[in-house]
């Protein structure tokens, strides 16, 4: 009995370590928990790989900061914040609501670059 529990605990501990080591923060999707009642699967987005293949070295393309006049800072970035820290669910003047902010940012670039997904199903991929 004791042995069995011992094995069980060892397996559990092992799995936790494996998850920690390999799951180590490779962002796979844009989380949707800021939305009260999400309707779609979270959008696929392998942060680091995406930005490498798309050659986006400048973090502030997405993680931007604006001053009071609505002018984007060309030296400050906001990767220490979630988009939802600034963007509410509804539009607020020049600041699009959260859903629109994501769509404008992601889809907008894919359309101008003529590369990357643009239809709902291509981003909100069913698991």
């Amino acid at each position: 009995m004791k042995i069995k529990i011992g094995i069980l605990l060892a397996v559990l501990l092992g799995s936790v370590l494996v998850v920690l080591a390999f799951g180590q923060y490779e962002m796979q999707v844009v989380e949707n928990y800021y939305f009260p009642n999400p309707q779609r699967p979270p959008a696929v987005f392998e942060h680091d790989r995406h930005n490498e293949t798309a050659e986006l070295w400048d973090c502030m393309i997405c993680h931007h900061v604006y001053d009071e006049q609505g002018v984007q800072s060309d030296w400050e970035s906001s990767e220490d914040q979630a988009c939802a820290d600034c963007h509410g669910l509804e539009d607020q003047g020049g600041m699009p609501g959260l859903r629109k902010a994501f769509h404008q940012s992601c889809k907008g670039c894919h359309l101008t670059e003529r590369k990357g997904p643009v239809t709902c199903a291509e981003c909100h991929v069913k698991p």
Partner: protein
Amino acid sequence: MHALYEWVAGPLTWVAFAVFVIGLVFRLVQVLVMVRKTEPFIFTYMSWKFSLRSIGRWLVPFATLRWRTSPVMTVATFAFHLCLLVTPVFVLSHIVLWDEAWGVQWWALPDAVADVMTVVVIAGCLFFAGRRIVRREVRFLTDASDYFLLALTAAPFVTGFLAYHQVTQGAGMTIAHMISGQVLLAAIPFTRLRHMLLGWLTRAYMGSEFGGVRRARDY
């Protein structure tokens, strides 16, 4: 693919809506001018009261004799038309796109509900087609154009359903959906689907003639 998507989601959508709206207005004017020319006396007894009484009655399931004599058809017709009209206006995907194009948005159906309503429309089209095949008295009145109109109506719902469920890879199904929706919208004024506007006039005319002239009810 991106150029095609932009084209279909942008200019082509505007063309489709313009043809739909201008086409229906044109049809309305055409009918009024025709009545004025051939049977102008109809205008003398058109009545708001009897028009609305008739329309109101026919909008309620089983409120008219005709609805009561064919209950299965009545249920099918009401479910079908309700879902047909409500789903495209309140489906989340469309609202997301309106919001991004115009900055307007309104209440959306939960995706799961819209999905069921989509299936109701598709099932309705199959039911109406089946009825045309099975019932002899209906088959007698049926020609190819009836099936064509059913297919035209079902197409955006079938492709929308397949796109939502991601049955195929890539943007193809969504683009096919958009095109089928645009073809349907643009076709409405030029096919019998224009009853979505003119049907109300027919009802108003029947209501007024029965109510005001024959002193009877048309339901």
